[in-house]
């Protein structure tokens, strides 16, 4: 099944929403997965040269287990190629390959694109010769689930089985990308015999070979990797129509012959000939062998499309870890990384003692009925003139500094918040963070509902006040609430200077005091945030304004 999607369609698909150009191999965050970065039409040279791919998929449509790949060449014919492998439901009797082509090309190339696509699946794929540059197929299978074997990688091409193998539910997609320097001698097109002609060493020039998906690209010059400024490949060979032969007398050389190569950028010039031949010479025979293996594999993938099923057990022999690239190793690590609960159970990860703990734990640790950090933070804030700071709690502190403060508080018992390096906005942000990261919201949902009910009831203000006071007496964490609202109330007393009226303050502090319980998804939280905000702000504002009475502030302080 082959689909061609416009980029826009793809936008709509849930599993490839957020692409992140900077973390090409980010292995799945929260369901939505990265498609790929793309350059936009009209943007000269903006396109990332090394194809950046990819990543896994959330199994959204049931049968799509993985998608690979993506895109682009140095000079803005961006084509996105997505390959999805699916295993049939229930342990997988059948596997199938799905590919889709997605276009991101600029206007001038739009018309050309569609013709590429149908070839990928059924017929021996003609190279996307209608493109100025070929499709990249980049690395492979980043399945989010843990049961994966280690990802295949480029170096593994040497020892690869020659076919794409799929075993369900474990899917393994083999790498069809390889890159490396070689010396190439382009031969005059000759209608010669099938035997390879003799090598003429003098004509060898440095090239960089890039095998990528259905094509072999020859870049002029040997240096470095391909980057954005690099000119387009000089030659593009479609593997499906390329044959290779050993060259007699040299075990480092290969004779390549391609019928009707794809025209490259300056179509009409030298590449128009019907047949292209060259000698490629590598440094060592081993390299040649590896390249032959990779070429054969890539061609196989294109033409044969024969997939064998493997037994359920994961393969015993692992891919040699020594050859993993950093990205792949990281991917691997993330995939195998045990869940946080597991680590906590084994005592490897300990939850932070202050931030992100539950209120009762923090209080027990500090041996008081309110968290020490809150008391110190509030004291420091008020001592350093925080109450007169315009936009207190509204303007955030430097995130890095807040993080530093957080670590300090978590790791040392004896910290001093009165130092000059903790400016007021940092302290305010830290306080908000502390409240927000408590395991349970300071205003428990039940308590909030009760207060909201009384607050909204049409009773007389004094009656309402009394009812809310009643509710608060049995509230968990009353001392902490008293501490916090006492402070907020003092902030509001200075609102002529700091411009934070009760309503303003309630608005920015509210989301830190209560949040919908249990709803894990960000989207749900956001929706709740928007709808509940009015009520929430109203209640928090009420609590701030009436703090004197509700929390018996004057009595307690006296």
């Amino acid at each position, binding site marked *: 099944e082959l*689909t*061609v*999607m*416009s*980029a*826009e*369609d793809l*936008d709509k698909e849930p599993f490839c*929403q*957020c*692409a*992140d*150009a*900077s973390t090409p191999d980010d292995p799945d965050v929260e369901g939505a997965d990265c498609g790929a*970065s*793309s*350059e*936009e*039409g*009209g*943007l000269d040279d*903006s*396109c*990332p040269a090394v194809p950046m791919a990819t990543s896994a998929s959330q199994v959204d449509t049931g049968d799509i287990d993985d998608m690979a790949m993506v895109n682009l060449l140095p000079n803005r014919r961006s084509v996105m190629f997505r390959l999805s492998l699916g295993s049939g439901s229930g342990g997988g009797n059948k596997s199938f390959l799905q590919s889709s082509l997605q*276009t991101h*090309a*600029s*206007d001038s190339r*739009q018309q050309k*694109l*569609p013709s590429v*696509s149908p070839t990928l699946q059924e017929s021996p794929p003609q190279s996307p010769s209608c493109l100025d540059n070929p499709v990249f197929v980049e690395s492979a299978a980043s399945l989010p689930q843990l049961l994966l074997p280690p990802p295949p990688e480029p170096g593994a091409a040497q020892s690869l089985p020659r076919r794409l193998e799929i075993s369900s539910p474990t899917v393994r997609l083999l790498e069809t990308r390889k890159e490396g320097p070689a010396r190439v001698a382009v031969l005059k097109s000759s209608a010669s015999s099938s035997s390879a002609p003799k090598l003429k060493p003098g004509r060898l020039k440095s090239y960089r070979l890039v095998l990528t998906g259905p094509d072999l690209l020859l870049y002029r010059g040997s240096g470095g990797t391909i980057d954005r400024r690099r000119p387009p490949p000089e030659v593009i060979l479609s593997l499906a129509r390329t044959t290779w032969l050993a060259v007699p007398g040299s075990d480092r050389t290969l004779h390549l012959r391609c019928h009707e190569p794809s025209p490259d950028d300056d179509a009409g010039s030298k590449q128009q000939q019907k047949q292209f031949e060259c000698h490629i010479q590598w440094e060592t025979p081993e390299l040649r062998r590896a390249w032959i293996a990779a070429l054969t594999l890539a061609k196989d993938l294109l033409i044969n499309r024969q997939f064998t099923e493997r037994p359920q057990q994961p393969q015993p022999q692992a891919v040699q870890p020594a050859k993993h690239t950093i990205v792949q190793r990281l991917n691997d690590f993330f995939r195998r990384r045990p869940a946080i609960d597991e680590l906590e159970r084994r005592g490897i990860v300990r939850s932070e003692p202050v931030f992100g703990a539950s209120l009762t734990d923090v209080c027990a640790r500090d041996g008081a009925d309110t968290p020490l950090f809150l008391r110190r933070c509030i004291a420091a804030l008020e001592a350093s003139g925080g109450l007169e700071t*315009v*936009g207190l709690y*509204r*303007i*955030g*502190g*430097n*995130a890095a500094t807040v993080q530093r403060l957080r670590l300090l508080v978590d790791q040392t018992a004896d910290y001093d918040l009165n130092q000059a390096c903790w400016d007021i*906005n940092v302290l305010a*942000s830290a306080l*908000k963070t502390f409240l927000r990261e408590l395991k349970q919201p300071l205003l428990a949902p039940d308590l909030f509902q009760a207060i909201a009910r009384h607050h909204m009831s049409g009773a007389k203000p004094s009656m309402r006040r009394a009812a809310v006071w009643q509710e608060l007496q049995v509230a968990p964490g009353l001392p902490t609430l008293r501490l916090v609202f006492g402070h907020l109330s003092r902030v509001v007393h200075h609102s002529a200077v700091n*411009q*934070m*009226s009760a*309503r*303003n303050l309630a*608005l*920015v502090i*509210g*989301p*830190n005091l209560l949040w919908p319980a249990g709803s894990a998804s*960000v*989207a749900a*939280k*956001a929706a709740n*945030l*928007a709808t509940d*905000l009015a009520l929430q702000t109203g209640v928090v504002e009420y609590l701030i304004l009436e703090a004197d009475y509700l929390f018996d502030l004057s009595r307690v302080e006296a």
Partner: protein
Amino acid sequence: MSKSVSKSVKPIKIVVIGSGGVGKSALTLQFSKSKFFLDYDPTIEDSFSKSCYIDNEMARLDILDTAGQEEFTSMREQYMRLGQAFLVVFSVTDRKGFEEVDSLIQLIYRVKDREAFPIMVAGNKIDLQNDRCIDQSLAQELVQRHQEFNPYCAYIETSAKTRLNVDLVFHDLVRLLRLYNAKGGSKQAKKSKCSLL
């Protein structure tokens, strides 16, 4: 008659983002209502609409003014999806707000799945020269870094209080968007692209 013209034009969705208290609302209100409001209310989300002629072409702007506080970050991606052009505001008197600009722009690229997008960076509050801590060159440098791969990115210094460059910043953003659309980045262009399937 002008009404009918404005109805026929598709509105442009502009989203104003930036960290808390940098003057996003002031800028938006100054542009849409030509007033500088002294009240100091944190925004959750407000939207304004204004029609104007930019380069002799009618434009209907739907401006979404957003919350800058970290508590409201969960709403960010939602409105980012809707925006066609972004105004990233920071205050030249607030280092923290400036530091957040880069990450906000990165977030736009990520949410939009684009390497280039019409983004205007506005350095606000330049009437407060005495409190200034972000140099023009510093901001210029940041934007130039982005311009290397995103030509639809520009920097303008503004003052919502004195109305300096307020119109310019919105108008230029619309110009950037038009340029961007003309070069084929627009959705319409994309739609026509895929004729197969």
